[in-house]
């Protein structure tokens, strides 16, 4: 978007300036009474609450870890089920035809509506939060994986077939690598929905977790504390999202040129180490002709 190549310090400074201006306007508006400070406290009060929450009382960490664990566990369980069903559906069309109507039924039901039922089933502890997280994050993984695995480039497929690739080879060397970017896109959606599921279940019935903390604070009309908790939730969401992004970068290494170069260099070195530098090219063919 930048027209000229600027040093990176200038845009950062500009962003900070804009941020400071927004905060200043907000403070000013609260000072003259344009904003109801009970409902939307001034920025310095929110900052004070953040300080209190993270440093003075340090109450947030326990809740933070609990919600983190619930969201991650829900994502792993829901993601694995979605992945498994999608892979099975992509391999066997009959299976897909009989599974997909139920998957779609689950999708059109707002998963969060199941909160009270899930809590009745799994109790007040962690498991109900994990279960709700798993339910709501199942579908994004399922649909993305299934679509990605079935939409293989037909020309590449033809080439694989003309080289007499076996079904296993086509699956592992063609379908899976081609599908991975889209599968990870599904993971990215799913991890944030798993967080939503965990937090909503906490709203309903729980004793610990960021959702509980926030609900308590906001019902005590400690709005600055509630907003601090909300910001912590954004932080949690960002952390979870970044985790998936890092994983994406590791697994789908060929999409970024620098990663691609690093990985191919590493693979080449490993190949040479195994085979000795004289034995041929990495394509496996001896350089005899």
């Amino acid at each position, binding site marked *: 978007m930048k027209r000229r190549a600027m040093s990176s310090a200038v845009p950062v400074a500009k962003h900070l300036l804009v941020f400071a201006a927004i905060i200043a306007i907000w403070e000013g508006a609260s000072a003259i009474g344009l904003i109801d400070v009970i409902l939307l406290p001034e920025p310095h009060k929110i900052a004070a609450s953040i300080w209190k929450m993270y440093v003075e009382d340090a109450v947030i960490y326990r809740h933070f870890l609990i919600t983190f664990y619930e969201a991650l566990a829900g994502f792993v369980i829901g993601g694995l089920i979605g992945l498994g069903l999608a892979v099975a559906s992509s391999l066997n069309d009959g299976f897909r035809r*009989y599974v997909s*109507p139920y998957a779609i039924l689950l999708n059109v039901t707002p998963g*969060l*509506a*199941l909160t*009270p039922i899930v809590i009745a089933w799994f109790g007040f502890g962690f498991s109900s939060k994990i279960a709700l997280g798993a339910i709501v994050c199942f579908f994004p993984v399922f649909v993305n994986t299934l679509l990605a695995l079935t939409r293989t480039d037909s020309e590449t497929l033809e080439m694989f077939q003309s080289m007499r690739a076996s079904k296993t080879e086509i699956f592992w060397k063609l379908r899976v690598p081609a599908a991975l970017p889209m599968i990870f896109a599904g993971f990215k959606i799913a991890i944030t929905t798993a967080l939503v599921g965990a937090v909503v279940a906490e709203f309903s019935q729980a004793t610990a977790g960021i959702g509980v903390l926030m609900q308590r604070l906001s019902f005590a009309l400690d709005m600055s504390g509630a907003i601090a908790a909300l910001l912590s939730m954004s932080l949690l969401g960002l952390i979870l999202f970044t985790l998936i992004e890092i994983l994406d970068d590791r697994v789908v290494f060929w999409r970024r040129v620098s990663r691609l170069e690093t990985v191919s260099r590493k693979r080449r070195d490993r190949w040479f180490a195994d085979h000795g530098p004289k034995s041929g090219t990495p394509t496996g063919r001896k350089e005899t002709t």
Partner: protein
Amino acid sequence: MSEIGDIRSPQGGHRRTVILRHVGIFVSLISAWEIACRLGWLDPLFFPFPSAILTGFWRLYVAQGNIWPHLGLTMAEVLVGFVAGSAFGIGLAICVGMVDRLRRYMKPYVVILEATPRIAIGPVIIAAFGFGWTSKTAIVMLVCFFAPFVNTLNGMVGVEAEKLSMFRSMRASKTQTFLKLMLPSALPEISAGLRLAMASALGGALVAEFIASNAGLGVLINQYTSTLNMASAFVCVLTLSALGYFIFRGMEELDRILVFWNDRDRTARVGERRKAAWAAGKGGKS
């Protein structure tokens, strides 16, 4: 979605036999459930009999009819919140998208807002707006605001630079650039954003009702589960599934109408109609 939802077998096969097979599987699943309940393998307190759910439908919809006011209220919250929230989101995104400078500085805030679980703002909004339906509508609005906003912004930023410079070289005005270039190329994404928003609107309204409310389907589900009247709770959930399905189909239809050029039949039809309108406008001379 329609791709994976396709239940027809590729071998062709009679439509009727395919449907029969699906119905057969469904019926056997349900009867297995019923039998498992009757034999005491599943606790009917938590997993109600399918027959109990069926009678629950009759009771809630006809005999007592007590679901209707709750259903109406939830629907009203969803619709008002969706229309207001998405209109606000698209409007703001258009304003931001037309101004180059603004767009650049908005990005970090959009990222933070994206990472926040929207529904999590629920308790704060309920504290601000009270326990009535306004707070629920406000939450739905908020939930429906983001996806259209982000998608519209993305769609407008994603316009090809070459096309933009062509418009500029032909001296298109700002309005023309917006109406004939930016808006059409952003429409598929806007429509996708609307679909996302609508999908989350129902969930948003329910969660808001779970947190604090005195009427609505969420409250009804909460009441039934806390009295362990699971069959009635399932009736409410299945009602929501049906609602969700109709909403989903409706949004798909809207997408076909808005983004008519992605569907060949519709493109042809709209083209015909525009041609006729143009000919009529020119008085048939041309």
